[in-house]
């Protein structure tokens, strides 16, 4: 009888240990992205970023086990694509940032930059779309 009681206690302890082990095996993340554009004279400076922020379990999280982030920036001058580039970051803290400067021979140009954020998470080997941000301006 005493043996049975001890077994139950041991099993319950094991279950609690395993549950806490499973729960703590995951990491929880939010992934954000941004864009920047500053026009001046005949040119423009642009930037784009994608970053993952770890949050506590039970908080407002969107992805678990993030292993990388990626940002893609497309820049358009007067409606025509002049830049299409991307960068990834596979080590924590995850933050992929892109910046650039463009110039034109003429004034009165329209500049547009689109930054698209991606993340690799939840055991996947490929990056999935998170969202995009866009800005435009003229000089």
């Amino acid at each position, binding site marked *: 009888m005493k043996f049975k009681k001890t077994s139950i206690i041991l099993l319950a302890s094991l279950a609690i240990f395993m549950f806490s082990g499973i729960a703590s095996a995951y990491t929880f993340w939010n992934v954000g992205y941004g864009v920047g554009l500053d026009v001046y004279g005949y040119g423009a400076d642009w930037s784009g970023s994608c970053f993952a922020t770890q949050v506590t379990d039970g908080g407002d999280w969107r992805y678990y086990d993030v292993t990388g982030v990626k940002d893609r920036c497309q820049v*358009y001058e*007067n*409606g*025509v*694509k*002049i*830049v*299409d580039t991307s960068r990834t970051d596979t080590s924590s803290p995850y933050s992929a940032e892109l910046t650039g400067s463009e110039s034109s021979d*003429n*004034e*009165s*140009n*329209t500049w*547009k930059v*689109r930054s*698209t954020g991606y993340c690799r998470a939840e055991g996947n080997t490929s990056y*999935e*779309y998170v*969202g*995009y941000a*866009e800005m435009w301006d*003229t*000089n």
Partner: protein
Amino acid sequence: MFKDIKKYLLVSVAIMLLVGVTASVSYAKSVSVGKAKTDILLKDAKEDILKTFAQKNIITDYKLVQLVDVDKTDKKVAEEFDNLDQSPIGSTESIFYLKNDSSALIVLYKESDGTNVMKYAEKTKDGWKESESRKPGKPILDFDKIETE
């Protein structure tokens, strides 16, 4: 003496105001010219692309959408638009069409040599079935030669 200074100040302020207003008007005009020229370039490209593919059902069965709106309402559709939107350097900004029932989408753009490209994706049980069509088109307008007035 005091009257002269007052007169001088009034004239100076008037000149400064005049210069400021002229500069502001000139800047605003310059900014709107750049935007207007870009709009003309993109409109011309769009008309040629639609004419080339002669897709009447694009107008009737699809709606022209902005990525920002799609991104807010349907991430899966936005992701597929992003998959299709892989235009090379020198292409015009892509145009996005979504079928009214969201079962298919189209991305259109003109490449630097004038080639018109239509990328298409249709929703399937497992994801999206993609296809691409390319046809010769007229060259992209020379931005510097576009006249707004």
